[in-house]
């Protein structure tokens, strides 16, 4: 089975925010909820680099490890999803997540934040695939339609890649060979194989 991954090629990302609005568009994500965002380091300085961030759909997801009601589950495609009916809005997952993926509709403490919302890798939730109920709670289910997440599909410079980890790693590897250099990012080899030049 495929292991679905995101990879943002920082050499290509120009912080155009297409991934962000594509996500809003596809799922009608409300104001204030950011399932995906672009992070820029060294803004305005030589070495400025941007990277598009969302839920990374971890293998051993820290959010799931800390969830007191066990609302997370991992699909056969290795996508980390959660059940909003089970979620109690405690916010532990947001403390555990290294990427800031979990989002809450309100900013109060503990049980009053509302149900957690995050990137679903465009694959909905526990409800029936492509049902209205699923759309209302989690947004559309592109994976069930045989499509990839819209953020990556619409990325202006094809910086953000989505798909089977093996395949996108291969695409990235080819780019690195063509360029003759890698992005220098920490953890790249861990995620995409020892043979990736960084």
């Amino acid at each position, binding site marked *: 089975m495929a292991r679905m991954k995101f990879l943002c090629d920082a*050499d*290509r990302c*120009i*912080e*155009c*925010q*297409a*991934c*962000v*609005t*594509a996500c*809003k*568009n*596809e*799922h*009608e*994500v*409300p*104001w*204030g*909820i950011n399932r995906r965002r672009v992070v820029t380091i060294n*803004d*305005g*300085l*030589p070495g*400025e*680099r*941007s990277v598009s961030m969302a839920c990374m759909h971890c293998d051993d997801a820290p959010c799931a490890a800390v969830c007191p009601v066990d609302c997370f589950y991992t699909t056969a495609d290795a996508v980390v999803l959660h059940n*909003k009916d089970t979620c109690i*809005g405690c916010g532990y997952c947001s403390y555990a997540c290294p990427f800031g993926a979990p989002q*809450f*509709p*309100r*900013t109060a403490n503990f049980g009053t934040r*509302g*149900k957690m*919302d995050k990137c679903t890798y465009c694959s909905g939730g526990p409800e029936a695939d*492509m049902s*209205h109920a699923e*759309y*209302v*709670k*989690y*947004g*559309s289910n592109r994976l069930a*339609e045989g*499509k990839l997440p*819209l953020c990556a*599909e*619409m*990325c*202006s*410079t*094809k910086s953000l890649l989505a798909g089977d980890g093996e395949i996108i790693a291969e695409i990235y590897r080819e*780019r690195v060979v*063509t*360029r*003759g250099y890698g992005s220098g990012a920490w953890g790249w080899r861990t995620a995409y194989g020892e043979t990736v030049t960084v």
Partner: protein
Amino acid sequence: MLVKRRTREAATSGRLSQMAAGVAARPLDRRSFLRASGLAVGGLAAIGTIGAGLTRRVEAAGFIDMSQPIEVKTNICTHCSVGCTVKAEVQNGVWVGQEPAWHSPINRGTHCAKGASVRELVHGDRRIKYPMKKVGGQWQRITWEQAIDEIGAKMLDIRENSGADSVYLLGSAKFSNEGAYLFRKFAAFWGTNNVDHQARICHSTTVAGVANTWGYGAQTNSYNDIRNAKTVIFMGSNAAEAHPVSMQHILEGKETQNANVIVLDPRFTRTAAHATEYIRFRPGTDIPVVYGMLWHIFENGWEDREYIAQRVWGMDQVREVVKHYTPDVVEDISGVDGETLKRAAQQFAQERPSTFIWCMGGTQHTVGTANVRAYNILLLATGNVGHEGTGANIFRGHCNVQGATDFGLDVGNLPCYYGLGEGAWRHWSRVWDVPYDYFVDRFDAVPAKGGRDARTPEQNMGIPGITSTRWFDAVTIDADEVDQRDNIKAMVVFGHGGNTVPRMIDAQRGMNELDLLVVADPHPTTFAALHSRTDNTYLLPICTQFECSGSRTASNRSIQWGEKVVEPIFESDNDYAVIHALSQRLGFADEMFKNYEMVDGKFGMEPTPESILREINRGAWSVGYTGQSPERLKAHMRYQEHFDLVTLRAKPDAPEEVQGDYYGLPWPCWGTAELRHPGTHILYNTNLHPMEGGGAFRPRFGLERDGETLLAEGSWPVGSEIEDGYPQFTYGMLKELGWDTDLTPQELATIRRVAGGDEEAMDGVSWSLDLSGGIQRVALQHGCVPYGNGKARAVAWSLPDPIPVHREPIYTSRPDLVAQYPTNPDRRQQRMPNIGEVVQQDVVDRGVATEFPIILTSGRLVEYEGGGEETRSNPWLAELKQDMFVEINPADAAARGIVDGGWVWVTGAEGGSRARVKALVTERVNPGLAFMPFHFAGWFQGADQRGNYPEGTDPIVLGESVNVITTYGYDPVTGMHEGKVTLCQIAAA
């Protein structure tokens, strides 16, 4: 601070947490969120008042019911000029999903933030919902009939009392080609040349500079072709924010070619972050910087001597001028050292093919045209025009600014650059099938005044109108100073923001003094909110290009057909229908629309865009907009997957209808559609047969100069039967060559008709006036370019500076340089005085640079576009940039006690102007430089103007406009404003 802004309920809150407050977790669809958050209170309240009858309320649901049929419509993004294809999924008349358009060779499925959010435009809560007018200071809903009737009556009244020229027709780069053409035709039938659009303020100086160098005012190559370049220079272009999808081609090209990407910009832009070299220079010193490179090129003999000898005239004179710009002189003026420029120059000249990309950083200057000419000279000196990977890659701004420019939404042109001469009017009279004298009757006679001679209506037809940068001066200035019958009394604004031109305090005064103000737009724009008008102000809801069909021309001259995605929402209607309704009321619709197929529209009859395009095809010979029939354009959209990513050419296995064509039939696409010319991917390319898209520089400046030929020497396109330069083709020339016998009897009859039946005059009928296309066909058949084969001009003797020289900005930070490099002398242009020299001297005398020590420049953000009303009304975009800001260097901030994110007052050097914005402290700008984006409006000198918008149409995000701060300064050729260099002072608020 933000709490204070909550003066009204609607959308005044800026913090995400506040926006999110009160949202239930369960239903996460936008509608219920908006209701809960109060975000769209105005919009929803307004909807409640709309009668059920004519208004179709679109449900903004993004849910797609897979059990129901889905229609997929293909259109083009309505934001920048890259021309990204948009695939819209429509269910039950509602646009429910946006899918990647994988097959488009231009965007290959991708979008930027704006393109990825266009679906929202046709759900737009904040669109104008129905026609409105101001009565006693209050907006009132009216019907279309009443609106058109009252506007028409007032226009006729103004015509009676002040003349046709007193009505200013401001058009739009957001029109389709057919809409732009129709609007220009409308101006001709109304009887004025006061018709303009956004090209004035984005690339008018490019068009003037480039057309005066080698013939046509357009991007020579394409976004895709940059993949072939080995060296890419960006100067005054921030493509990563302004044209993000172009970066796909540029970055991939950079990787595969190992290309040099050099960014020259006063500001370390997001594009610079991806460059191999970034060179910072003082704003307004483009010419010294370019000459600084040329100095090294000439000094080291890196120029392409063979290319210059064959295809360029006057380079030796340039060489003399460049000698003055030694590395020391250039460093003193611009701040760039000689070694850096030498490195860039060597790469550009020797690691070819090289391309030069520029945008508004180069064009929006008092020396805009001269800047463009300097870029062109650099390209010509290094032989970098006319083949793959080279060229002047001018990235245009709006989705159809190229098309709207081509179709003459310009004070000095009829459609397709025919000019305003009698020949031009007679040509279009023939195409429109209306007697020439009809138009003479429509124009004003101008009395003698201000020491100027009187003009007959016929003479007035040939005089360029007032530029869009000066309309408000033409309202308020003494009537003697305006070179037409009377001042401007009415503004009819179709799709144009009011905050994109400098000196908004003066613009506000102009708006207040108008007798009539009509805003026809999907959104109210600054034109509806900036002023304190109480009456005679109208809003007409126009739909977007997603709600009608038509073609649009991308920056690379490719023409793409967009099909209607959904019906116009609310009571909005399309440009074609509204222009028709107005023409009817004004009494010339029958004549103007007689060549079109008329169909039932939403509120009345409207012409089909196909039939308008067919009329364009019958008349647009001068730029080759004749082969692009609606059928061919639609076939290109249908078979997008058959076009090559790099060459844009349809592959051999493509369907017969498009085989061999270049994508979108980029103009010139010569002859009739039946000739099957493939379009021209790369202009002036002698490596191809003209029937395959080849060409040469256009000899449009005479045949010789100073005893030297202006025709090409020893250079000709592949397959040419004339193996040397030659002038433009006429019937007479065909006869001399003995090629006239190739004309068919029908073609000959048409040429005779164009000549008015006069056998002698037939010889003078040229390739651009022959309505049969026969002369073009025969020339191409013999391997010749219809417009001739000439040399490009390194010296453009018809311009104020035939060879560009440095001229300091009017509001200069270096007053010590003004004596040596003064701005252009004062002059009258486009019916108005230009007193730049007087202003500059005053700036120097008063020591303005001491009081206002920071240079202010302006530019784009990726999330917003143009005046920004449309994009700031889109919540998916508005959420990303909620505050207007000024970028200021940490040193300048520290010296002023300014903290990042704090409020500051930016004060301008003219008229006590000031703006209250947030500080973004960053090294992106050097000490002494500040940057502000130009997309904001709705705050004016500290005051919130939200209440001025009709209820429910106020954009979500408002902010101060940079153009409140910007100052006087106009290019002597095109009237382009100075938008990139002024002076300011910044203080903590």
